[in-house]
């Protein structure tokens, strides 16, 4: 029976993560953004919540109850509500862990998954995007060729989170059998991490260009071995997660603007007494809910093992558009105060504009 309320487990995840995001991320957000610094400490604290090990079966060192895209995105919304840059950084191990859980061979699971069950943050990431105006995840230009019993990777990747410190980078490339993913060591020969990239937002998140030049990788590093990965499903899992983060940012901006509008007095009354302000808030509230329902549906479908390409891409498009609108309203409602960096709405405005471009930077 159709229902749109959280169960007890999900309520607990939501509450815990909201509190955590409030306590840990919100305090760091401004300073991290201004100084373009990701506090290592925050990554460790997220790890300590056990969010990685809780999705990993016991046989690989975890204590999985039931892995659920829906539960993961409920968490992702809250963490992004705290701060998008820190959330993306802290969850970046999932970028390697989830594909292995989803498609890895037994050997790969045994080898790699225990790393994520330790006490400290296991720095790992994935390289999917490429620096092109018309980037399309289905037309990767990075290639994987089998040569002499090795896979040889060539190409340029951008927006790779934490590439500077990642023990492994999961590199997506076009191979003979379609889209493939390789677990490449961060210090592998032929893989070079470029200068840190600069973007309008996500300033606290270390993002890098990664160049692969005849980078040789053992074939057992190909996720899923011969069978390979379900690239489409991984993209959809990623979209669901990014949608939830877009909801988090939008909700943050909406809540802040709402409180501001109730307190700010102009012409003798709170500005929220004016329909032009009140209706922007009403629309934001409505769209935040609509975005969340779309994201949930994509994740729900993915949890049932069904193809969710339509749901994920529609949700992604919708969430990217609406986040731009809602965070723009946030700045607009604060007016001049929204334009200065003392108030977080300008950061959410900048961060909120990333979603239209992002693919694969988070995964459920």
């Amino acid at each position, binding site marked *: *029976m*159709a*229902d*749109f*309320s*959280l*169960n007890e487990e*999900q309520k607990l995840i939501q509450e815990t993560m909201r509190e955590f995001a409030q306590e840990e991320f919100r305090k760091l957000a401004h300073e991290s953004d201004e100084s373009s610094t990701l506090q290592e400490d925050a990554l460790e604290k997220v790890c300590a919540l056990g969010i990685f090990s809780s999705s990993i079966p016991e046989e690989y060192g975890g204590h999985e109850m039931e892995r659920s895209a*829906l539960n993961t995105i409920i968490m992702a919304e809250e963490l992004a509500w705290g701060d998008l840059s820190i959330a993306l950084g802290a969850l970046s191990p999932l970028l390697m862990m989830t594909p292995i859980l989803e498609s890895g061979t037994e050997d790969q699971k045994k080898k790699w998954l225990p790393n994520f069950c330790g006490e400290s943050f296991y720095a790992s990431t994935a390289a999917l995007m490429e620096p092109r*105006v*018309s*980037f*399309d*995840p*289905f037309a990767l230009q990075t290639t994987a060729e089998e040569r002499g019993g090795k896979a040889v990777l060539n190409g340029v990747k951008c927006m790779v989170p934490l590439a500077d410190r990642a023990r492994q980078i999961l590199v997506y490339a076009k191979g003979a059998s379609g889209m493939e993913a390789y677990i490449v060591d961060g210090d592998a020969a032929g893989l070079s991490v470029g200068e840190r990239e600069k973007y309008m937002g996500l300033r606290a998140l270390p993002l890098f260009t990664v160049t692969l030049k005849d980078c040789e990788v053992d074939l057992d590093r190909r996720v899923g071995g011969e069978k390979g990965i379900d690239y*489409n499903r991984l993209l959809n899992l990623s979209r669901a997660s990014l949608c939830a983060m877009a909801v988090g940012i939008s909700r943050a901006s909406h809540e802040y603007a*709402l409180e501001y*509008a*109730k307190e700010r007095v102009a012409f003798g009354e709170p500005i*929220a*007494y004016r*329909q032009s302000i*009140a*209706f922007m*808030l*009403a*629309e934001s*509230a*409505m*769209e935040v*809910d*609509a*975005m969340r*329902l*779309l994201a*949930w*549906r994509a994740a*729900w*479908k993915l949890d049932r093992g069904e193809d969710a*390409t*339509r*749901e994920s*891409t*529609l*949700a992604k*498009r*919708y969430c990217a558009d609406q986040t731009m609108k809602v965070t723009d309203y946030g700045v607009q409602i604060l007016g001049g105060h929204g334009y200065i960096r003392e108030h977080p709405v300008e950061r959410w405005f900048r961060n909120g504009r990333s979603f239209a471009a992002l693919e694969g930077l988070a995964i459920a």
Partner: protein
Amino acid sequence: MIDFELSPEALKAQERVRTICENVFRKISRKYDENEHSEMPELHELAEELKGEGGLRGGMNRDFLTNVIVTEELSWGDLGLTLAWPEGGLGNAAINAVATPEQKARFGKATASMAITEPGCGSDTSNITTTAKLDPETNEWIINGEKIFITGGKTYDNVVVWATLDRSLGRAAIKSFVVEKGAPGRELVKLEHKLGIRSSDTVAMVFNDCRIPYENILGSPEIKTRGGFKGAMATFDATRPGVAAMGIGVARAALDFTKETLEKEGITIPYDKGMHDLSAVQKAVLDMEAELEAARLLTWRAATMLNKGVRNSLEASMGKAKAGRMATLVTQRCVEILGPCGYSRDWLVEKWMRDCKITDIFEGTGQIQMLIIARQILGYTRAELK
């Protein structure tokens, strides 16, 4: 628990309605759009046919989500005909939402329209001037006033009339009353000619010392100045998801038709392509699909809350506001995409555009919905946020 699966009952009802739409509604859609206010024998036949099914829509024990699904499906067929549906109209929804078991038994079988708006008040229901006075001798209510924009007032038997027990007490004194067919002093005074939903009649009625039994009041006759107004206003919480579903159904009709037509021209809609690989028309269709889904999920949520007995006026208004606006824009876009053919009355898209516009107007305009949402999220009274 989060679940997007429809119940087997809902799916079955949806399928049944789909068949009716294809076999009956779509075939007479244009005819009764062109011939406003004419008799529709096909609907009477349908009423006969439906008798054994225990009510497809507005049934007594039907869950609200199923009603929303059925309404979307019917409206996909034809919104005007949906509003002339032989099993009743908004008045039935109102009765189902607040009636006592006795009243449900008395009024449940009859069809009912709803009379709220007056010539001097549109969205401003607090300003209702139609009065209901109790005659202590006969224990009857005496209704006096004029109502306009009554959907199905000609077709349906009963009419649920909003009237005030005491104008000086404002909203709290507004109650709704079932005025049965043939009640003395109930008179139909005007049939409107409309932009769309022409197969459904919209009428004006005058109540002139119209006497009805005491038991015809819906909800309590008590005037609660605090937290009152519930009997009447609660109807909206129950009916708005249905109105939203109407907009969604019509928009889907237009979108389905547009996609089918484009497919005949060799244009399909890819879900896995980025903006740089889409044509302008493909992107427009994808944007419309996303908007439609957003409206639908907001509407479903409001309906599931009704099922649980959770207060849903915020969520109901969100669904209605989103769906009404979405339907207006989606149908308009479809007309545009189909060029001169979209604008032609040879196809139904132009009709769907005219029809669905009402969903952003009746049961509270889009602007009124935004006001309701804003007041709730801000915690403001009507005086604070006008």
